[in-house]
């Protein structure tokens, strides 16, 4: 019986309809199907669920529409990248902002969900209500754009959706283009909701009911995800591939063998080492992750690091180039040796420090610890690929200025608690990347008192004030640039975080084109096409 089923599939008669389809590898090369491998596990089809991991954001991107999306530009390191500076329509046809900046009115396109029902403003409202109500990550992310309560959203008529803000903010519109505020088929969702589960979390966990470019037709947790194209997608140009298979392959060596032999077209998010070695043979995109910095953090509530001169001494002795080569194989972007004077608001930017042992000695001599001290440098075991070489090089370098460092490795879940929640690590490595690509947004998370990524316990009244003032301010406001520059000056003077380098997202491609880098660091399959096309 199953033989006849396969024969039926092989004829191609069921190509778009069958949910259980497997493509022949030969067909993968023919332009109909793309196979991509990644080491990440997708653990839910619903980004709003508690515990949904980063890899699953790809589903929200590929299977659902948002009202708006970002444009496209040439990326440093080759290929394309999203463009934070331009907002483009996705599900919204157009939008207007009131003169006081408090009301945004969207007009929706004539779009349909994948079950054929039309997308209405009511669906948008229900989806936004869900995002701000369910708690956890989606609610926090919505809040970043000033979207906090269901009463801020209104479906005026079937095609008109209104967002009312408490204050005008430059982050509101871009925040609608991140993966979180995706538009769900509310009628279908409500039909599968229960009294205990009013937001249909169970149903959406396993079903994609959007109006996006693809839908998930098969999800074998821990193994693979199969996307089928939505032929009537209106959010953008219809994608080239009818079917995309994402396979999970944890071993980097296996991923390499597969993509080199051309059995898969994309190896997504591969280690820097493999990217550096594969670059000679295949197309490898290594895009520096925007608004993301690998840093050495010095916890300002611990005694030796309360002394600014100690922090500066360490910043002057860190072997930046050696770390960049050993930990990142030269992939990404250097963030040291920048000009002393700050003339623009570019971020991430090079710090004014460079490896200079003589200067480091001067700072040590001027500090309260001229004879050095002992401390602990903590790293996470699951990020050991970059943290371990970096930590060893730092340990060796600071020994030259009399600082004895003991390395401490902290495993998995405990790392997060120790570094970010309890903020109890004196000296540690950390990385943070903000989705909303402005320096003030980075400062909000990483330099403001008690905020999650401020693992150095940094507090400076002026930085607090400047961040609060600039966070929602328009970037063309005449006051914006001077305030941002002042923020940079203080950050490099106080130095709770020493920038090391900007990490890269590495993608090896063999037989496909159109790869586009996104801030969410997941594979956007919509723009991919066969290499010959």
């Amino acid at each position, binding site marked *: *019986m*199953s*033989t006849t*089923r*396969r024969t039926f*599939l092989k004829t191609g008669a069921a190509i778009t309809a069958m949910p*259980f389809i*497997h*493509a*022949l*590898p030969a067909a*993968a090369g023919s332009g109909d199907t793309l*196979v991509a491998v990644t080491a990440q*596990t997708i*653990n*839910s089809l619903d980004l709003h*669920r*508690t*515990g*949904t*991991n*980063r890899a699953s954001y790809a589903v929200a991107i590929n299977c659902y529409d948002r009202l708006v999306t970002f444009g496209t530009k040439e990326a440093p390191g080759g290929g394309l990248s999203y463009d934070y500076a331009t907002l483009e329509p996705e599900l919204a046809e157009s939008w207007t902002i009131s003169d006081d900046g408090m009301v945004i009115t969207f007009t929706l396109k004539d779009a349909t969900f994948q079950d054929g029902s039309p997308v209405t403003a009511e669906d948008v409202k229900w989806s936004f209500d869900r995002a701000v109500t369910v*708690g*956890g*990550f989606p*609610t*926090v*992310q919505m809040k*970043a754009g000033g979207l906090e309560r269901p009463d801020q959203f209104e479906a005026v008529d079937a095609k008109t959706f209104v967002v009312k803000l408490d204050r005008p903010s430059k982050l509101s519109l871009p925040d609608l283009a991140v993966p979180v505020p995706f538009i769900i088929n509310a009628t279908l969702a409500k039909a599968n909701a229960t009294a205990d589960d009013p937001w249909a979390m169970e149903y959406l*966990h396993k079903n994609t009911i959007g109006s996006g470019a693809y839908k998930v037709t098969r999800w*074998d*947790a*821990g*193994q*693979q995800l199969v996307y089928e194209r939505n032929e009537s997608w209106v959010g953008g140009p219809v994608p080239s591939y009818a079917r995309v*298979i994402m*396979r*999970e*392959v*944890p*071993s980097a*060596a*296996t991923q390499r*063998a*597969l993509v*080199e*032999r051309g*059995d*898969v077209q994309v190896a997504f998010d591969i280690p820097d080492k493999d990217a550096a070695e594969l670059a000679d043979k295949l197309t490898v995109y290594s895009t520096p992750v925007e608004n993301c910095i690998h840093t050495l953090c010095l916890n300002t509530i611990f005694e030796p690091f309360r002394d600014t001169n100690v922090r500066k001494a360490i910043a002057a002795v860190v072997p930046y180039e050696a770390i960049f080569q050993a930990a990142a194989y030269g992939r990404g972007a250097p963030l040291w040796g920048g000009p002393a004077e700050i003339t623009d608001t570019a971020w991430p930017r090079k710090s004014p420090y460079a490896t200079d042992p003589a200067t480091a000695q001067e700072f040590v001599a001027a500090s309260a610890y001229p004879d050095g001290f002992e401390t602990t440098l903590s790293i996470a075991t*699951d990020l050991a690929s970059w943290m371990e070489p970096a930590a060893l090089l730092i340990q060796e370098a600071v020994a030259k200025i009399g600082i004895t460092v003991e390395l401490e490795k902290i*495993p*998995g*879940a*405990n790392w*997060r*608690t120790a570094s*970010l*929640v309890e903020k109890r690590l004196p000296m540690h490595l950390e990385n943070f990347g903000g989705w909303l690509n402005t320096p003030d947004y980075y400062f909000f*998370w990483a330099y403001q008192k008690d905020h*999650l990524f401020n693992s150095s316990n940094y507090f400076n009244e002026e930085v607090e004030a400047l961040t609060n003032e600039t966070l929602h301010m328009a970037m063309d406001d005449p006051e914006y640039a001077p305030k941002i520059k002042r923020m940079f000056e203080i950050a490099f003077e106080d130095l709770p975080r020493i920038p090391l380098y900007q990490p890269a997202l590495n993608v090896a491609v063999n037989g496909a084109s159109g790869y586009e880098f996104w801030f969410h660091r997941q594979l956007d399959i919509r723009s991919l096409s066969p290499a010959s096309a």
Partner: protein
Amino acid sequence: MGARGTAIGLRIAQAIPVLFGVIVISFLLTRALPGDPAAQFAGAMATPESIEQVRTSLGLDKPLVQQFGLYLGQLARGDLGQSVSTGQPVVSELASRLPASLELTLFALILSCAVAIPLGVLAATRPGSWVDQLCRLLVTAGVSLPTFFTGIMLVYVFYYLLGIAPSPLGRLDFIYLDPPHVTGFFLIDAALAGDWETWFGALRQLILPGVTLALFTLAPIARMTRAAMLSALSADYVRTARAAGLAPRKVLYGYAFRNALLPVVTTLGMVFSFVLGANVLVEKVFAWPGIGSYAVEALVVSDYAAVQGFVLSMALLFVLLNLLIDLAYSVIDPRFGTSAK
């Protein structure tokens, strides 16, 4: 048969306190893990409030005793809870992943026994010969090569260089459909469905990881067979049998081998348990959707339900395995269950 039945019944009864102990210990140990699952699952941009929200929604704000009570209640209903990291009920995850690991492990063990036992017997009957040397070489190689290294080497040679092995992409290549689910063992399910094309496809995928694991398990089995055979062959009853003029074949297989099997079966049980553990690395190399990688990932993110479910199912498996080994004794050794044992 009565004494034997009682002995078996006693063995089963002994499993109950063991299992309860496992439940208590796995519960307490997961709570003693240093990580905070609420902070882990609240996501990248967690605020203190959202971490608290997650803590409440996972029921982690309740006192430990109450959590344990709830857990026991769940277990009584056959519910192992919901894994937060994978978003699936633990029961269904285990049901889909355990057969994958077991199929691989059993395949490797059968492969390994098929080579190791005859090799051990031959080496014992001809000490110092080339067969004995070959046995020593294989044993040394098997123990000294780490499984992930063997796995990567095999992939490199047979898939990457020669192109004769299928892509190392888990249990089935894209061409095939999963066979209808009966046991979860693809070879059995495909055979039951009469779908020999899929059966062959599943077998192809099994060969490289199976050989990797078999190389690893070869050593203890071959060594134990050789040693047990040597001691059996020098035993009095073999000398007596020989002196009585029994045929060499009868002496070798009827007396020596049968007695040598007892320690071999014991070793097999131990090998089986440590191979299930050693599976993790092989599963990673071959993208095998097994239980090992699942457990490790659950542990790393403090996913309580998944870890407890894994420990419990492993405990059940080993209780069952030990029972099976005891039953195997009863078949091999007629003294089993009698006072003379």
